[in-house]
């Protein structure tokens, strides 16, 4: 392990994340992990890391870092004003950096979360099978917390890339997103509200974080005979729960069990769009059948495999 970065300015919320801690949900340990699984995966691929390597996830404003050793890095996700020694550099591209370089991710002007991968991966001890930071539990990642100025980050062993890697296209996240969602598990609680839910625009509120995204828009009313809450049951990422005020919340990966009814579930291939949405952005939901959702997942998986292939050529 080698010291790779000194944190000069951490940004408002930068954490170490990987694909997440999946094996202990039955014990109340949430998945955590990078919210934009696509950007995280591509960032690792660009620097030839294993898919389970840890990266940095920043929120709105990325960190400013002093580089301490030769390394390959790549920044994906939100388009930021990325600079290396004050020179603009492209995202979705592997960059060679060396001791004394100043890497500044800057502010996001498209999207919300940027991912910084370094060849060898961010080296922190795996806890319960993952290096992901679980802020609520105060463990994982770097001492279970967000980065602070003065932190030293290490990387794992890695050879420098023989050839630069670059993804020739990348997502533009925009400020209006359309999320495909399958009605349920409690769509029968909201029979008449489903029409509103799949037609009306909703706005991302300031209460949007790694736990979930609270939206604001037309009230989603329960059927008169539907109970106000349910017996607590397991939660998956993408669940859209509707508390008593009728304003939907898209749940992400920091909770395992909850007691509110869910009107619909956002499909896996569209979850990255939630991760890149910011307060003030517009969200629309599009109803898809389960069969269509499975078809979309198949296409998405094939697309990810093609990117992997392209980037290893």
């Amino acid at each position: 392990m080698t010291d790779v970065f000194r944190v000069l300015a951490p940004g408002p919320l930068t954490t170490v994340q990987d694909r997440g801690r999946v094996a202990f949900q039955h014990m109340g340990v949430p998945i955590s992990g990078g919210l934009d699984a696509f950007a995280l995966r591509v960032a690792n691929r660009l620097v030839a890391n294993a898919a389970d390597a840890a990266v940095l996830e920043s929120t709105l404003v990325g960190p400013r870092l002093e580089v301490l050793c030769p390394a390959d890095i790549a920044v994906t996700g939100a388009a930021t004003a990325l600079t290396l020694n004050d020179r603009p550099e492209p995202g979705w591209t592997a960059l060679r950096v060396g001791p004394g370089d100043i890497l500044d991710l800057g502010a996001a002007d498209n999207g919300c979360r940027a991912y910084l991968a370094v060849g060898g991966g961010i080296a922190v001890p795996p806890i319960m099978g993952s290096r992901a930071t679980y802020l609520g539990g105060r463990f994982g990642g770097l001492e279970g917390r967000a980065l602070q100025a003065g932190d030293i980050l290490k990387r794992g062993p890695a050879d420098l890339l023989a050839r630069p890697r670059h993804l020739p296209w990348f997502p533009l996240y925009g400020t209006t997103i359309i999320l495909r969602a399958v009605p349920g598990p409690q769509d029968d609680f909201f029979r008449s509200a489903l029409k509103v839910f799949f037609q009306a625009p909703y706005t991302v509120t300031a209460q949007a974080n790694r736990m979930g995204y609270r939206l604001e828009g037309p009230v989603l009313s329960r059927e008169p005979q539907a109970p106000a809450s349910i017996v607590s049951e397991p939660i998956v990422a993408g669940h859209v729960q509707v508390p008593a005020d009728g304003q939907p919340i898209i749940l992400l990966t920091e909770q395992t069990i909850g007691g509110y009814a869910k009107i619909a579930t956002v499909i896996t291939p569209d979850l990255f769009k939630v991760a890149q949405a910011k307060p003030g952005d517009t969200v629309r939901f599009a109803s898809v059948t389960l069969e269509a959702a499975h078809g979309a997942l198949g296409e998405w998986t094939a697309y990810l495999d093609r990117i992997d292939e392209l980037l290893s050529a």
Partner: protein
Amino acid sequence: MTAPMTATPLYDRPRFRHCGDCAVLVEYGEGIDLSVNRKVHAMARALRGQPVVGIQTVVPAYRTLAIVYDPLAIPLKGLEGRILALEAELGADVLAPPRTVDIPVCYGGAFGPDLEFVAAHSGLAPEEVIHIHSRDPYPIYAVGFAPGFCYLGGLDPRLHTPRLPTPRTRVAAGSVGIAEAQTGVYPADSPGGWRLIGRTPLNLFNPLKSDPFLYQAGDQIRFVPTSPADYDRIRSLEDP
């Protein structure tokens, strides 16, 4: 949406509710009921014991089991068929007695600052509160909300006590409390509004251990009254 009146809240056969493209909820019955909950945990253990290709995780709760699956590896219809077939095989396992995990608790004093309040509220002596609270084991219906936090059933109605009007900003890990009809233990330091009646010296959750937990959902917990001296002795054996 109210359950039909039946002798048992258990469904004749499990029902499925879909959660998007990669998860399905298996429902075993209505409400909070031990026979329904036993079914949930029997299936969860069966699926952990003999993994099915394409099933990634199972997460049990009170009356539902979430199955996270890869629909590209196992089609949903095939998955549901496997669950129903496994359910038919299980039967007897459900009746196996649950494992009981003893949790030593030092009641009252600095560890249980609300024991006197609970006693006054119930009209019992503090010793009676301790006796009632530690008499019978409590089934763990589910573990969630926070790592290692148990949703326990079976608190004696005489001990039901309202929450604090203002939650404490910090409750120490291991604190044992009562909130309305629930009793439980805080696995980690956190804010909290439960009435605290004691504290266990055990670490309920240690993320650095290969086996980070002392119990799992489906087990039952028994609180064993412990002296302050034993509390200190056990505490000194636990990792800091």
